[in-house]
């Protein structure tokens, strides 16, 4: 049922390369992947992922009239998601500075209890990466973009993405070392 969006958003705006695109259909076909990307970029925070993906679709709607079909529509949407996640990250950092909160501590191997425990450890490890490292790691290793595509999505040079990727893997290896040792012992 795509009535919710169609009722207020005018489909006529979504004319891409001469073809009318129904925003509701566009939303339905891209929301799952866009939300997964947002979720991964905000460190597994469900509410933040929802907020980021909603703002990204709203911005996509407002910007669709100016969309030049040079990039794929999905890549363009993902670029907006990356920017929104970055804004969320900045807001969170400012909030932490104002109220003096600390980032979550690494989970110890003693907390390991099946998949939920593993998920928590991995979320914590990815969450502790810097924004640049997380963007590079998520886009290249988890979402399957090439380094060049990831660089274009983040508005960075390929060299910068490679550096972030290298450091991200290094940090993840260190953070998840107990996990890998546990696997080897088992």
């Amino acid at each position, binding site marked *: 049922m795509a009535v919710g969006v169609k009722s207020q958003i005018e489909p006529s705006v979504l004319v891409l390369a001469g073809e009318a695109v129904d925003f509701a259909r566009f939303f339905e076909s891209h929301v*799952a992947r866009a939300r997964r990307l947002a979720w991964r970029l905000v460190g597994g925070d469900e509410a933040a992922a929802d907020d980021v993906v*909603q703002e990204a679709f709203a911005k996509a709607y407002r910007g669709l009239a100016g969309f030049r079909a040079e990039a794929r529509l999905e890549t363009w949407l993902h670029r907006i998601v990356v920017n929104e996640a970055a804004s969320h990250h900045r807001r969170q950092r400012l909030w932490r500075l104002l109220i003096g909160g600390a980032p979550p501590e690494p989970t110890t191997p003693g907390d390991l209890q099946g998949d939920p425990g593993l998920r928590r450890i*991995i979320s914590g490890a990815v969450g502790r990466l810097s924004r640049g490292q997380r963007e590079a790691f998520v886009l290249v*290793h988890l979402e399957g973009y090439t380094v060049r595509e990831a660089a274009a999505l983040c508005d960075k040079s390929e060299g910068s993405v490679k550096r972030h990727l290298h450091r991200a893997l290094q940090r993840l290896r260190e953070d998840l070392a107990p996990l890998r040792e546990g696997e080897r012992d088992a």
Partner: protein
Amino acid sequence: MRDPDQGMVEQIRRLYTPEPPGPGHRAALRAGVEARAPSRPRPWLVAAAIGVVIVLALAALLMQHPVAEPEVSRAGPGNNRWVEDVLFGAEQEDISVPLPAEYAALSELLERQ
């Protein structure tokens, strides 16, 4: 050769993945998008915004150029206070000058003749 990080990356990819949004969750997300992306600005909102801008601009202009009080000084002609004093009976200074003695004697002589 197998990348030593590949196993770790695969595990992260498997476990660092959210549940896909169900129908209810999708509907809620759609409603959120709808609320954030209205189709066009409402005319009354635009008119109100323009009105507020005009009022603020006028207020700013008035604040910059307040109506000035006339400056009062007792320096003399050209001054409102001086004119008021002359016209409406403020005490006048005696500005008569005494004549020299020779002129006074001459004037007396002329009167006698």
